[in-house]
């Protein structure tokens, strides 16, 4: 392994032990609970889709019905298996019945546990077969095209209208983008349902819907053929519908999902219990579907100072890594996040940025690190902005980041125009070429600023992790350890959707996914 910074491997190993301990404490809690989003996801994986006459998703209709009329803590599978047996109908048909009021699931509440759930399994298998087929298409693409050795260029589209997004995405791909992310409409993270169908009205982004996923994937498949490169698609499995969106992404072949274990808690004031339970199921799905996750540590630096709080980013990366491991995730899917956000006013800011980026690369050598561009210190001076982005691009290529989220000169002005994106891609491509092997050529002064900075940040992260291990993650969040924002265990949105599992709780699809992931690990 590359160790240009001469980092202390014992401290790194100790960080991992602390982080593992932190994740294990939380995992014990997670395993005892379910949420409305988890149960809706079970229904989606049974193949239920569509909305009722009021536009309410059928999966919401069923879960709302259970919350109101029955004991959801047994898990929706319990009810579905009985109802399907009784009516001799598909999950979709049962869901429609429940939505229209012609089927009351509460009558099954006190019936005994069905250990086999033989009615459900073929439907789960059908969905998983679809996910497998999607994995196969992706893996064929990646096998048959050249593997990039430089960071993958990632740009966002955010028009609010999926059809305009497609035009923008095609242009970006033609200009060299490797990854397209469709930003969601502002506020979608707080909707406790996933909107349905193709959408053309969104603000600051476009709604994440299964149909929008499909439309964009279809367009990118076409442009992949034309460019003979596989263009990856990203969306957001975050907010109150985390695992549902992961499931939709798995079905429609999204390649990456924003999926942070703490982001929603800190930045969207979603209840921490809800988020931690939901992130687990969503990550199990991502692991199974070979979707790379992107974690959101970069966001801490939008409220906290990037120089003073660099260690919180590293500590959180360690924690996100362990949560991902708990979900059976391979390191090659862990897109841990960080960002280039140190104030340009600080002398040697570039050296500190390079220290942080290089440090992340050395500590997580197999992770497809996601590196975010300057945003906080972009001013509206688009000309200077190009240079700030150029410095960021140099740090990205030099420290061999994996996922290179391009900065836009018009950051802080508007969601990018097609031309803003093209200029960013032109500049990034130039630097990618010009600095291609620069990182291989340089070593760092062992007593210099960069090495010292990396050691300092690692030590600070180590202390922080030790403290969090002792106080527990819930307490740490209450203390505002990340992003200096404090959240309470019983505060925030979505807590009403959290339930302690009944002793007879069943989730056959989660069990099946876990079993298969375990087999896959043993098989390797």
């Amino acid at each position: 392994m590359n160790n240009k910074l001469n980092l202390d491997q014992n401290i790194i190993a100790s960080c991992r032990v602390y982080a593992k301990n932190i994740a294990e404490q939380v995992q014990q809690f997670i395993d005892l609970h379910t949420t409305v989003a988890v149960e809706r996801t079970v229904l989606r994986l049974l193949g239920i889709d569509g909305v009722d006459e009021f536009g309410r998703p059928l999966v919401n209709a069923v879960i709302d019905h259970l919350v109101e009329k029955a004991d959801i803590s047994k898990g929706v599978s319990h009810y579905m298996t009985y109802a399907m047996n009784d009516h001799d109908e598909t999950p979709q048909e049962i869901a429609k019945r429940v939505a229209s009021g012609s089927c009351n699931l509460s009558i099954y509440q006190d019936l005994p546990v069905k250990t086999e759930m033989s009615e459900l399994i073929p439907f789960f298998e059908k969905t998983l077969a679809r996910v497998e087929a999607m994995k196969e298409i992706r893996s064929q693409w990646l096998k048959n095209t050249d593997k990039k050795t430089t960071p993958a260029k990632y740009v966002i589209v955010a028009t609010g209208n999926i059809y305009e997004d497609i035009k923008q995405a095609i242009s970006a791909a033609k200009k060299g983008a490797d990854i397209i992310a469709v930003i969601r409409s502002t506020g979608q993270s707080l909707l406790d349902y996933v909107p349905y169908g193709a959408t053309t009205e969104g603000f600051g982004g476009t709604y994440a819907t299964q149909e929008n996923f499909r439309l964009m994937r279809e367009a990118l498949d076409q442009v992949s053929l034309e460019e003979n490169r596989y263009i990856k698609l990203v969306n957001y499995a975050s907010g109150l519908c985390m695992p549902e969106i992961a499931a939709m992404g798995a079905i429609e072949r999204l390649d990456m999902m924003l999926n942070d274990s703490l982001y929603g808690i800190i930045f969207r004031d979603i209840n921490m219990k809800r988020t931690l339970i939901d992130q687990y199921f969503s990550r199990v799905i991502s692991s199974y579907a070979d979707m790379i996750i992107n974690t959101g540590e970069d966001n801490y630096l939008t409220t906290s100072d990037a120089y003073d709080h660099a260690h919180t980013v590293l500590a959180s990366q360690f924690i996100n890594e362990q949560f991902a491991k708990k979900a059976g995730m391979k390191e090659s899917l862990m897109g841990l996040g960080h960002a280039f956000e140190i104030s340009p006013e600080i002398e040697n800011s570039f050296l500190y940025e390079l220290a942080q980026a290089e440090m992340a690369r050395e500590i997580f050598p197999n992770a497809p690190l996601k590196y975010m561009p300057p945003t906080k210190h972009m001013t509206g001076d688009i000309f200077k902005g190009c240079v700030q982005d150029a410095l960021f691009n140099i740090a990205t290529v030099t420290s061999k980041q994996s996922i290179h989220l391009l900065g836009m000169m018009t950051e802080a002005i508007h969601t990018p125009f097609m031309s803003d994106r093209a200029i960013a891609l032109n500049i990034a491509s130039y630097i990618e070429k010009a600095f291609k092997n620069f990182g291989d050529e340089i070593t760092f002064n062992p007593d210099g600023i960069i090495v010292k900075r990396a050691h300092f940040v690692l030590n600070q992260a180590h202390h922080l992790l030790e403290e969090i291990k002792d106080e527990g993650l819930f307490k740490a969040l209450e203390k505002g350890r990340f992003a200096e924002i404090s959240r309470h265990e019983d505060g925030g949105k979505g807590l009403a959707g959290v339930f302690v599992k009944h002793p007879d709780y069943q989730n056959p699809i989660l069990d099946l996914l876990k079993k298969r992931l375990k087999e896959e690990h043993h098989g390797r």
Partner: protein
Amino acid sequence: MAAKSTWIRPYGDTENDGKIQISFSLPVPASPLGEEAAKKIALQMGIHDPSVVHYEALSDHFSFYVLYGRAEHMVDLNQVNVVEMDHKVMSKEEVEAFIEAHFVEPLVFVGASTGTDAHTVGIDAIMNMKGYNGNYGLERYKGIKAYNLGGQVDNEVLLEKAIELNADVILISQTVTQKDVHIENLTSFIELLEAENKRKDFIVIIGGPRIHHGLAKELGYDAGFGPKKYAYDVASFAVQLLKEKGIKVRR
């Protein structure tokens, strides 16, 4: 030379040369046709001798142009009106002293990022303890009680809270401005205040990267703050206006 004219034009390197640069995309393939169309658009904008210095394809159906030319238009500075705040800017300490000298403490500030807007960076920068860029937020001001309601707060909820907390000042942050969603939302808050007959009870201030004082006045707010404004800017304005209006003033 005659007395300095108040009529001006953009300046490149010679007085009155009118030199400007513009860039834009067109929904046509990159081609001589697109280049001519770009020049024609510039001519219609009153730009003489437009010269396309660079163009390139953005996709098979879109192209990008960078042009230079000479602007024909002039403006008379005497005819230009700027809506400016005529309140003096005070430091945090001065604001605190001002409050102590004039008011029945504390002054209550309630703020939120409203509507669908989930971005709280702006309101946090103004209100939260730590503030932004080394400038403490209102929570840290002596004599001010600050309540930050966070993001995606409905206008109705904001007003309800403001009444419940006996607010003197309401702060609204708007970051997302795509398709003018902020204008609609800000207008509806003022309408709500008026419908409830509460407009006079509060000082109402807006802020955000695309907000300016002129826009705020136009929409019926007391003030608007754009980029690079800090808690002390907002507080200075608010306390002076509260005093003028006699709200919570010590008799």
